[in-house]
């Protein structure tokens, strides 16, 4: 009668993962040109964790990240957000989840060069219908946190590479997301500037409890994360946790 299987027992005792992938598959194209980018990936990410998704180019890291960030839908399998099926989210609720739950830092900055740094940073707030005064206040606070307060009025195109990436992090932060996705966040930066950006990301993770999901092929960056998932040809080949 009390014959619980270990996995069920384990799940009951553990907290609900903030984000989970259950046997997720993703294929592009069909017929002859069909390509299976992910061939059945399962993983759980818990609140406050930092996780690295590591693998060679073309292994499917970005594809997995897009699925976790609800930017794309898997061909098969399930994505769970706080234990509920995230694939049921559509339209308005999907947009609001993207807006309020996630922040993004990409390898390329995707800043609008002609607009001011502040305007770039407050874009997520604009999308989530925050009023203009409040937007400005929160945008300046985020910039201050990244020591870019004095650059608020400058055009984004006038920033240095490291400053641009810090502006991007400010933009990812400004709407108080619970998870930040970073796809090759230091790929475009020299090692010194890259290290600064890494420090910022990990301190956000530590001090504000923001869950951090980093996609990288940089072993040093991966090593700083609580957990690493190695992907090869669309499959998880190894999971490694920092000795806890």
């Amino acid at each position, binding site marked *: 009668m009390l014959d619980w299987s270990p996995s069920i027992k384990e799940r009951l005792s553990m907290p609900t993962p903030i984000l989970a992938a259950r046997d997720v598959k993703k294929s592009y194209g069909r017929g002859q040109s069909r390509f299976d980018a992910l061939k059945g990936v399962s993983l759980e990410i818990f609140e406050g964790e930092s996780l690295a998704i590591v693998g060679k180019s073309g292994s499917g890291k970005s594809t997995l990240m*897009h699925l976790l*960030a609800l*930017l*794309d839908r898997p061909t098969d399998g399930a994505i769970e957000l706080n234990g509920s099926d995230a694939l049921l989210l559509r*339209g*308005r609720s*999907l*947009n*609001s*989840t*993207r*807006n*309020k739950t996630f922040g*993004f830092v*990409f*390898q*390329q900055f*995707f800043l*609008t060069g*002609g*607009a001011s740094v502040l305007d770039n940073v407050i*874009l*997520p707030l*604009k*999308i*989530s*219908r925050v*009023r*203009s005064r409040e937007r400005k206040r929160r945008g300046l606070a985020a910039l201050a946190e990244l020591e870019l307060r004095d650059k608020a009025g400058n055009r984004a195109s006038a920033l240095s590479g490291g400053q641009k990436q810090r502006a991007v992090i400010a933009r990812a932060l400004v709407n108080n997301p619970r998870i930040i996705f970073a796809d090759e966040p230091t790929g475009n930066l020299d090692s010194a500037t890259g290290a600064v950006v890494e420090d910022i990301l990990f301190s956000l993770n530590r001090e504000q409890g923001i869950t951090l999901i980093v996609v990288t092929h940089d072993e040093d960056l991966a090593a700083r994360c609580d957990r690493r998932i190695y992907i090869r040809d669309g499959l998880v080949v190894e999971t490694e946790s920092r000795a806890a």
Partner: protein
Amino acid sequence: MRTIDVISTAIGNSFRSKLRTTLTVIAIFIGAFTLTITNGLGTGINNYITTTVAAIGAQDVLTVTKTQQDQSTGPRKYDPNQMASTSPGRPGQTVAGMTPADISAIAAVPGVLSVQPTLSISPDYVEAGNGTKYALSASGAVPGLKLQLAAGAQPSATSSAPQIVLPVSYVKALGYSSDRSAIGSTVNIGITDSTRAEHTLGATVVGIAEISLGGTGGSGTANEALAQELYNAQSIGLSSSTKDRYSQASVRFDKSATPAAVNQLKARLATAGYDAKTVADQIGTFKTVIDAIVLVLNSFAVIALLAASFGIVNTLLMSVQERTREIGLMKAMGMGSGRVFGLFSFEAVFIGFLGSAIGAGIAILVGSGISAALASSVFSGLPGLTLIAFSPASIATIILVVMGIAFLAGTLPAAKAAKQDPIESLRYE
């Protein structure tokens, strides 16, 4: 995104590529400018016709003619009763003549207060103190008629003394020093009867009329007494059946009659066999012609606008292309497709607004300048004519129509932006 943010972002975006936006705005400007000018022309001419309405006839008067029996096309059967029409219409138009029997039949129709046959008079000349004779055409005053006077008074319908109102161009020719000095003087009017015998009649000048489009161009207007005297003189030698034949008659009806009541009266006259037209109907005919011309001109302007709308499509497609990344990012950050659509279509509407507002504004300046210049030169003889006039309603309509066209042009690029896939747009090269 709040609607206000969509609007301000769209406006900001349209200024991002200044040269491209400027070129598109210029294309729309040309269309809107033309449309405003052609519309202004219509408004100006129609306004003039409306304000000079009183010079053509009064509001409580119907012009009645006998209904043409033969309505078929092709050569008309000869009818000895046909006579030349004196009412506005195409040249050579004839109407069935009316006899005293017709006049009493019309008078018997309920709602008709009085009937006055229109006497068609053709005097030869007018002469004043200096003895030089000047050719003159004249017509009898229509009841209730209000001429635009430069001096003096309207011809009296009740006075039995012969009176005449002369056009302003006769004042200097007849030897008067000013419009005012002509008032009260006596002129001689020459007229030939059917036996080629000449008669001279005296008349008092009571008024000097401005030249207007309202039917009294360069001709004099005789009061009832003078018209009757002239008619009697020119009809000497005619049998009474030929003399008492009128091309039309004026019917007075109750001043306070509603448009519906006027229509009923017209219907009653129609059953009795007469066509009746109010002044408004006659003006309406003029206006229809003007409106048709303006419509043709407008269609050219609309063609220009259609060409410009392809400019909008092009401009926006380019900016969608340029902003692929930005659109992808906004969608990744949770911006709905509807808002993305709104962002681009509002940009189109804004470009349309810029082009049309500037176009209409400059057209108003240029048009007012042109009509002021023309009014003091070419049209100095037509006081009150503003060739190109602008009504706020038509300007607003033009701007709204152009914005509508711009919106339609923007839907294609906007839809393209709205259905962009965030990941596709964020893919690295």
